[in-house]
């Protein structure tokens, strides 16, 4: 398949760019932060639903657009450029993927329309440690006569505060992971929030003998590991798309600064020491663009090497976003480390985005394992 956008995908990208420039510029990110770290703007979220972005990856049988992940990836990329805060990633990319690929018809018909219409939203509770390690889940779901009892502690739950429920990853009696949809108001749950350096709020969720009905299990026995892997691949690829937007915006602002900032009576972009560093970043960003579109296509085609594409994407983008945002700070000089300009937002958000769903090291290691070394 050609590694380019088709006309419809291009139009979607352009319209997302226009919409966000009008309705959610970086200044909105700043004001949300300054307003006691507000997670997102409800009104904007409803407008995003009306734009159809929540329906892009939802199948037609649920009245979704079935437009695909290449499309959703363009939206994520544009949101990355403007640092837009909205629960699209948590409720659609994470919980949405869990439900669309669920074998539980009851949950699907209730929740997919609710997520797509934005009337409800779900968060995804997986991490338990300070690092990403989906193969070591300590949270348990013990089968009872009526359903399951869940015990465990989750952290780094994106958009967890105020969510209507959680997709919870827990080890079952069979020794595989199971995914459970747990209402936020279930007894035995304690939700606390923390603000990380990207000004985003992340929840910690304590599950203490939380009873859930057997109808809340998202996928049947024997399919849990596979579904979790798909969710994590999808998350890594969509995050990579968002990171690409952040990278291109931070780089664009930096190049613009090199073109205008004067020192020693010359524009600093005339200095070869800076020119060559900028040119090297350009090259790495060209690679980033390729792996992002390739991996998004891989999601749409259910590529056989999706694991590798996801890890290549998250590893490459994780590597590049670190270099690009560090260089952006350095090349902006003193002004870059002040809170008055926006470049620091990209630097800070980059650190969280590259940590979520596996950092550079995790995914590079996974690439090696997938290739048998």
């Amino acid at each position, binding site marked *: 398949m*050609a*590694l*380019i956008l088709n006309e419809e995908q291009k139009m979607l990208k352009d319209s997302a760019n226009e919409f966000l420039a009008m309705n959610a510029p970086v200044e909105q990110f700043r004001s949300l932060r300054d307003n006691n770290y507000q997670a997102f703007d409800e009104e904007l979220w409803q407008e995003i639903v009306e734009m159809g972005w929540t329906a892009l990856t939802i199948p037609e049988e649920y009245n979704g657009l079935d437009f695909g992940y290449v499309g959703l990836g363009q939206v994520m990329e544009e949101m990355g450029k403007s640092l837009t805060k909205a629960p699209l990633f948590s409720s659609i990319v994470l919980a949405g993927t869990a439900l669309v690929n669920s074998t539980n018809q009851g949950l699907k018909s209730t929740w997919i329309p609710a997520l797509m219409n934005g009337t409800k939203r779900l968060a995804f509770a997986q991490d338990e440690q300070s690092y990403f390690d989906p193969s070591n889940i300590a949270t348990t779901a013990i089968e009872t006569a009526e359903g399951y009892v869940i015990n465990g502690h989750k952290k780094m739950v994106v958009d967890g505060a105020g969510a209507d429920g959680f997709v919870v990853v827990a080890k079952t009696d069979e020794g595989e992971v199971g995914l459970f949809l747990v209402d936020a108001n279930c007894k035995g749950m304690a939700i606390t929030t923390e603000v990380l350096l990207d000004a985003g709020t992340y929840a910690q969720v304590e599950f203490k003998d939380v009873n859930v009905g057997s109808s809340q299990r998202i996928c049947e026995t024997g399919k849990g590991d596979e579904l979790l892997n798909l969710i994590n691949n999808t998350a890594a690829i969509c995050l990579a798309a968002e990171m690409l937007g952040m990278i291109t915006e931070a780089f664009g602002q930096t*190049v613009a600064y*090199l*073109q205008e900032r004067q020192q020693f009576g010359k*524009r600093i*972009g*005339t200095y*070869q020491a*800076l*020119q*060559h560093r*900028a*040119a*090297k970043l*350009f*090259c790495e960003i*060209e*690679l980033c*663009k*390729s*792996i992002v*579109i*390739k991996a998004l296509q891989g999601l749409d085609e259910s590529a056989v090497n999706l694991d590798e594409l996801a890890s*290549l994407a998250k*590893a*490459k983008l994780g590597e590049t976003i670190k270099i690009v945002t560090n260089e952006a700070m350095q090349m902006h000089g003193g002004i870059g480390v002040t809170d008055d300009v926006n470049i620091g937002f990209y630097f800070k958000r980059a650190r969280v985005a590259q940590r979520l769903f596996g950092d550079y090291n995790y995914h*590079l*290691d996974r*690439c*090696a*394992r997938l*290739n*048998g*070394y």
Partner: protein
Amino acid sequence: METTMKTALEDFRLETRKWLEENCPASMRTPVKDSGDFFWGGRNATFQNEDQKIWFEKMLEKKWIVPYWDTKYGGGGLSDAENNILTQEMTRLGCRKPIFSFGISMLGPALHKFASEEQKMRFLPEITAGKTWWCQGYSEPNAGSDLAGLQTKAEDKGDHYLINGSKVWTSYADKSDWIFCLVRTDFDAPKHNGISFLLIDMASEGVSTRPIKLISGKSPFCETFFDNVKVPKENLIGTLNDGWTIAKYLLTHERQMIGGVGETDVRRELHEIAKENLPLRDGTLADPVLRSEIAVQGMNDSIFEMTIQRIMDEAKTGVNAGALSSFFKYYGTEQNVSRMELLTAITGSDGLVWESENEDAKVQARLFCRSKGNTIEGGTSEIQLGIISKRILNLPS
């Protein structure tokens, strides 16, 4: 209509496959070890063996020496789609190119774009027949990165030009029949505006060559000297003093070749070689540092390949990819140099063998040394980064 076309192409594929299977000798389907395995053509053409001769002559008869050039120049007249199929089928069977020729890869495209019809009829059929071995005369001892500062002089003597000067890094000049050269025809104009593109017969009186030995031991490179060489005026290609336009066009071409764009050779994965040579622990390479270096190399190699595809796909939709040739050249050669460095680490002392009774054993150390030239030839990495920063990023001068 479209279905008919598809069927015709499928037929072409099957016929091609059958023809190649019947006509390409088995030994011509093995990978080439080095440039000595190629057939180079030329006035004094010598075949390494009988199979090479058979293969060249079969392809010549089929007009597939340059399958995609016009038949009036001795080409095969194949469409892009047909030519792609032929390339795919040759790759599938592992068929070698029947000839290795800078006439095909470098000069040909320039002649197509800039030469008069008369010149095309004179030079292109000689290329498609494998009768002329061409070399390139660009760099000079004092014009390396600053190529446009070249000083080889072509004086207008009425019916001919008189050439004086020297060229360096002229690959195979000692074996070539002709050279395509950048010469200075105007010393008063700004340096880019006084250069012309000239074709010179290496048999002309006053031309001499001297081979250059590289750190890899041997090399095809030469210095080429011009001492009062007379060149007929009809050998000038394009407009007088506008040779830089042709040079830029050809350099773009060369950068893509060196950067590995369009390369069909399948290189072995480094991790496969590592697994054969190095100890494993729990199914992974026991050396964690080398393991991560191999993973980084593998990541960037595979994503660079995707990037070549993406940019070519974009070019098909009309996006101008011209300035990106510097990206290809820079990134492709940097990757190759780091790959060779890693290969040396992976193979340990075996990869350091310089002389041995076993010819195969000494190949890698020499290739490793040779790779150090990759980020220099065809415009250094620094020159490419400069082009990217000025032409793509629009950073000020």
